[in-house]
């Protein structure tokens, strides 16, 4: 494989970190200048990331070493197709989220906006770091920075509820960090290397009992952020955060970083071959299935819109992990592409929830009767994304579910096909009442019956993401070449494994 040495990955990470400090220095007084830093950094980051896509598609990898601690122990960026996919998702959605955030915080006249934008930029910086990291150590470093950078966002409201959610979040993620630190140290001790390798690198370095233990620890560590049950508890609580944060947390950065970590562990540390030999892939798939079903049912019971979306997130993330755990070519394709598709659809849903919150201060599903007449654009986008998540063509969710189902068949595990089907039914069950109520029910008294949308800063991003999820459903390879990147990643993994 060709390796290109370039400092572009570093700049992609640094640009938002620099912006974060510029934001801090600019402060509350010059809001427009401060926001312009965010936008500029987001655009710059996106362009840097995008400029590397063609290189990756040629089958090359881009590498940059920051520091070497020891032979085999270094902070290093290496961009492969899988990392690139995540990088593109995160950096493209940041632009939209930035605009949306500006509309949101100004619409609500939030406090501590500087801290908010600072933490936001730090989050993105570490997310890109995670996407581009070449080894487990680099991954862990950025993963922990992400943990800390998200904390100010979770407690943003500074209410009692927010602080409790923040404590819960820290308790879960920091414990996970410790478990990871131990597991990674043990892997380094056993193998002397931590570099991700398509198809795994750990095979044969220890007894199967030790390997299974390490696998469990790594999945526990990354599974916390991915909301894998029973470690999902922090995620619905973290819904007290402002909506753009939830959007970013639950669609792009934090939970996707967890999923990305799980997939890295499954596909690039252990590898399909080893997991088959150890026989833990099936257990993993069952855990994921359990999460899918239970989260679906729990979502049904939520009246708070954002909490319902949170459980839907847990459900979808588990689906991605299921795809990887089934270890077939189609299921992997489905899982990896679902990372992208879910990101666009889920961020749309959260954007809609935020728009409702800002415009009409409604947070509960039961309050949404007839709201579609007042905010047709918002609820239209909501409908598109919800339909997409349920897996109905021509939205992008269909593509990923199709591949996942194919994968379940390829793995000769019909049961997972049923799991996916059940999940789709549950999706329909908890999304469609919202769509129906908002468009067809008689409006509640306090709903303005004529067109009265949220600020355009908020509406335009959510319309864009909704449209994109249709486009990706029809042409999966459009714009960002997600499909090509996915198949390239799968090819790499299967080619070796």
């Amino acid at each position: 494989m060709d390796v290109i040495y370039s400092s572009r990955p570093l700049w992609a990470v640094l640009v938002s970190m620099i912006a974060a400090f510029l934001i801090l220095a600019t402060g509350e007084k010059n809001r427009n200048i401060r926001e312009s830093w965010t936008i500029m950094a987001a655009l710059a980051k996106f362009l840097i990331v995008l400029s590397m896509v063609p290189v990756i598609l040629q089958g090359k990898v881009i590498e940059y070493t920051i520091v070497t601690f020891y032979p085999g122990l270094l902070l290093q960026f290496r961009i492969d197709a899988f990392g690139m996919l995540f990088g593109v998702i995160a950096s493209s959605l940041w632009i939209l989220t930035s605009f949306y955030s500006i509309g949101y915080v100004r619409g609500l006249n939030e406090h501590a906006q500087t801290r908010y934008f600072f933490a936001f930029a730090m989050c993105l910086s570490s997310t890109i770091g995670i996407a581009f990291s070449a080894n487990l150590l680099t991954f862990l470093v950025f993963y922990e920075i992400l943990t800390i950078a998200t904390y100010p966002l979770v407690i943003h409201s500074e209410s009692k509820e927010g602080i409790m959610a923040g404590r819960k979040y820290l308790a879960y993620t920091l414990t996970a960090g410790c478990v990871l630190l131990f597991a990674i140290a043990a892997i380094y001790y056993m193998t002397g290397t931590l570099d991700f390798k398509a198809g795994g690198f750990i095979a044969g370095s220890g007894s199967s009992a030790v390997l299974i233990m390490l696998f469990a620890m790594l999945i526990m560590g990354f599974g916390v952020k991915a909301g894998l049950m029973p470690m999902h508890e922090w995620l619905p609580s973290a819904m007290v955060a402002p909506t753009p944060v939830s959007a970013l947390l639950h669609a792009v950065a934090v939970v996707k970083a967890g999923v990305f970590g799980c997939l890295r562990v499954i596909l690039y540390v252990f590898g399909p071959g080893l997991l088959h030999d150890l026989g833990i892939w099936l257990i993993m798939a069952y855990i994921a299935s359990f999460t899918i079903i239970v989260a679906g049912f729990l979502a049904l019971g939520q009246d708070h819109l954002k909490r319902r979306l949170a459980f839907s997130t847990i459900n979808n993330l588990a689906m991605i992990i299921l795809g990887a755990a089934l270890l077939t070519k189609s299921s992997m394709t489905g899982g990896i592409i679902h990372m992208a598709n879910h990101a666009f659809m889920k961020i749309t849903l959260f954007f809609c929830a935020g728009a409702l919150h800002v415009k009409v201060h409604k947070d509960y599903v039961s309050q949404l009767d007839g709201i579609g007449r007042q905010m047709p654009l918002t609820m239209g986008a909501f409908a598109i994304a919800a339909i997409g998540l349920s897996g109905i063509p021509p939205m992008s969710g269909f593509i990923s579910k199709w591949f996942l189902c194919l994968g379940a068949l390829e793995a000769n595990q019909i049961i997972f096909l049923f799991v996916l089907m059940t999940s789709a039914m549950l999706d329909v069950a908890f999304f469609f009442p919202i769509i129906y109520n908002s468009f067809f029910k008689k409006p509640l008294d306090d709903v303005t019956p004529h067109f009265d949308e949220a600020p355009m800063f908020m509406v335009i991003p959510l319309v864009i993401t909704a449209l994109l999820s249709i486009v990706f459903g029809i042409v999966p390879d459009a714009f960002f070449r997600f499909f090509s990147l996915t198949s390239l990643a799968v090819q790499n993994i299967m080619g070796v494994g």
Partner: protein
Amino acid sequence: MAEQFAALIIVVPLISSLLVPVIGWGQKKLCYPWVVAVLVVPLICSLGILNTVLTTGKFSYRLGGWAPPWGIEYAIDHLNAFVLVIVSFISLMVAIHSKKSVEKELSEKTVPFYTLFLLLVTGLLGIVITGDAFNLFVFLEIASLSCYALIAIGEEGAPIAAFNYIIIGTIGACFYLLGVGYLYIATGSLNMADLANILPDLYHSKVILVAFAFFTVGIAIKGGLFPLHTWLPDAYCTAPSAVSSLIAPLMTKVAAYVMIRLMFTVFQPHFSVEIVPVFAILGWLSVFAIFWGGIKALAQTDIKRMLVYVLVAEVGYIVIGVSVANRVGLTGAILHIMNDAVMMTCLFLVVGAILYKTGTREIHQFRHLNKKMPFTMAAFTITALSMCGIPPACGFFSKWYLIQGTIEAGQWVWAAALLCSSLINAVLFFRVIECAYLKPMEPAYAHNAGETHGEILRDEAPFTMLVPIVIMAAGVIFLGIFSGKIISSVIQFAVPASF
């Protein structure tokens, strides 16, 4: 030139400390600039020494020109050159920071304070630089005596804490001296290098065993290792803030250095590992130290007292690194000597600044400190994150090596203790951060703090305090990022070659 550095590093602060009263007699205000100026000299000397060691390898300086087995020798290798830099750098930073807090807390006693301050630094530097077992005792006592006196001039309760420290510290020093005596009986030498040559033939002698036991207990007392730490919390907590920010990070670290020096240089590692099961005991004691320190710290509402208990746990870290007795663990221990010294200094300096500005150390009264003292609190937050082991701050990397060490030694419980301790630290420090950065959880705090409801004005610590704090906080990050460089250029040579 480096030869002269080795002498100057002791002589300059020693003589200058005697000149402090002379200067203070004339003009009290001149003491502070004098002390700061004097402390630059050890820093330059230690950097020069480190440079020489790195380029030409280890060397020795004969005091008064007497040849080693009889005369006192300053033997300098990578390990003590490294620790010398830490000690001299931190003492300079604390000295710079001390100006305002000494004026406020010890306005009557400025002159004795600075005299003793320099003596303490002399003692610490001497412990590190000397290559003679008895000379080490003398410097240990110089440092301890100035410590006792400095602690005794602290707040309410300080004299009694200092008295306890005197009693227990003397026992520790006497045990060390007895150890030296028994070694002398067996070998007839006091020079460390000489001892290292003679001792291997005598490893099965009971006298050596007794000496080793006395050394271990003596140093454990001085370093505050659980369960011999009982004097430590009161003594360090009641001391004036300028004093505790010097002795809390350094005294324990220097004791850890002496432990490494004795166990791996004077005695061969295989003696300390195979013939005496001391490391199994020390390791388990450290596990208790970590948990006990962490739990006691959780119970405190006074931030300085909390830090002191965290310090007890941190001593446990270093001793675990020593106890695993392998190369990577020891690397972690030596790295943690540096990292912990920097982190602890930063935290104590921050506490000193907060105490100076707000007059309180109670955590729940820290409200709005992020607005009042943004830079101080930012430094605190960075260091706190480092204590929790968040990369890329330095705490993460020492933890990484320590855990590698425990894995290599197969001590899973020790590894678990290290990991649990980061979680305990997270609870401890996020509690403070919540209090300082966020609105109060209970509205009850709102009126009893008696604060204005208007804009909270910035009221940052004075410049002399802020500069060292910011430097230390930056150090926390930089030492983390460059820890690989530090290990490959210094620490890997400092670890005994027999590993």
